[in-house]
């Protein structure tokens, strides 16, 4: 086996892994506002997100790899969103559903976070107030294309994740009481269990 073919095999393997991951997205809907209605329509039989391999909403972030932020994120809620994101196992992707989750929308005031990307890295933004289900499906296909191209935020962070495992174990979240080892020790959530 030549050197070039030896370096080519992991790439093929990575492509295969990405192909498998993009068609089995398990979503966690972080639904906070009216966009959730449109999300239900997208999940339902008429628009049927299941056709794209993302049919099964998990109601625990620990079993999900696609976080869909649906609706307005307030400053008070932002630590909770971060906590939910930290609980998800790698590799994980985030979709901002609607303008409020993308930029804060028309809520330009003291209480609304100007976009979920202030708190967590976002892979794909779906604009609209609320977005039509077709837009959501388009956003999902965009995300799948990015996963296949290995361009998701977490994929760039953790590098080559092909079947042999992760390259940098420091990037892996180790969960202890909802805190994450991806944070520095002084940045973890309070240890007294107080949830804001």
């Amino acid at each position, binding site marked *: 086996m030549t050197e070039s073919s030896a370096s080519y095999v992991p790439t093929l393997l990575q492509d295969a892994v990405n192909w498998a991951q993009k068609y089995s997205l398990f979503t966690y809907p972080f639904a906070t506002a009216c966009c959730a209605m449109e999300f239900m329509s997208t999940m339902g039989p008429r628009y049927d997100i299941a056709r794209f391999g993302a049919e099964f909403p998990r109601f625990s972030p620990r079993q999900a790899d696609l976080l869909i932020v649906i609706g307005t994120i307030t400053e008070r809620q*932002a630590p909770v969103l971060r906590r939910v994101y930290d609980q998800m196992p790698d590799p994980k992707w985030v979709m901002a559903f609607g303008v409020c989750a993308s930029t804060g929308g028309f809520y330009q005031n003291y209480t609304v976070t100007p976009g979920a990307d*202030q708190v967590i890295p976002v892979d794909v933004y779906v604009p609209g107030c609320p977005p039509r289900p077709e837009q959501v499906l388009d956003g999902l296909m965009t995300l799948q294309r990015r996963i296949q191209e290995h361009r998701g935020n977490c994929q760039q962070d953790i590098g080559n994740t092909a079947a042999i495992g992760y390259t940098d174990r420091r990037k892996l979240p180790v969960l202890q009481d909802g805190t994450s080892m991806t944070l520095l020790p002084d940045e973890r959530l309070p240890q007294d269990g107080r949830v804001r």
Partner: protein
Amino acid sequence: MAQRVLEFLQRERPLALAETGSHVGDEIAVVHREHLVEVLTLLRDHEQMRMNMLSDLTVVDYLGQTPRFEVVYQLYSIPHKHRLRVKVLVDETPGECWVPTATGLWYAANWAEREAWDLYGVRFEGHPDLRRILMYEEFVGHPLRKDYPQNGRQPLIRRPDAPPTDDQTTRLMPDSHDRRVS
């Protein structure tokens, strides 16, 4: 229709009233603060009034005027079907920015007064649990005051590489708990 409520107050407690008026069919009574609880109790308990429902409790900020704040009680009588708007004028100096609580009269006043305290900074003396109700505890200031900066955000958490925003006071407010995460 609720003119009889005003006439009743003028007959029963003339000294408590600073001003009375009517605006598009709603009767308004401006009450001195030291007589507020007395007037509210009378309105709730008197046989002809029976104002047993506190529809809403709000504050208006007239920035630049003295007194600056106006605490507004919207009262409704379910048995007699009449309404009254009771107002109290409050100044903004810290020692003066308070009104007595109405939680002893209506349970609905509890959260409404907490909201008024949270957003306008008007204290309700005697309230059993005067905490912030909408904003978080770390928040500094009262955001619906007219001199609070527009877009004055006090984030609890931010990514260090977060996109730029239109914030005016982000991370500038004292004691803001700004936790950076990776």
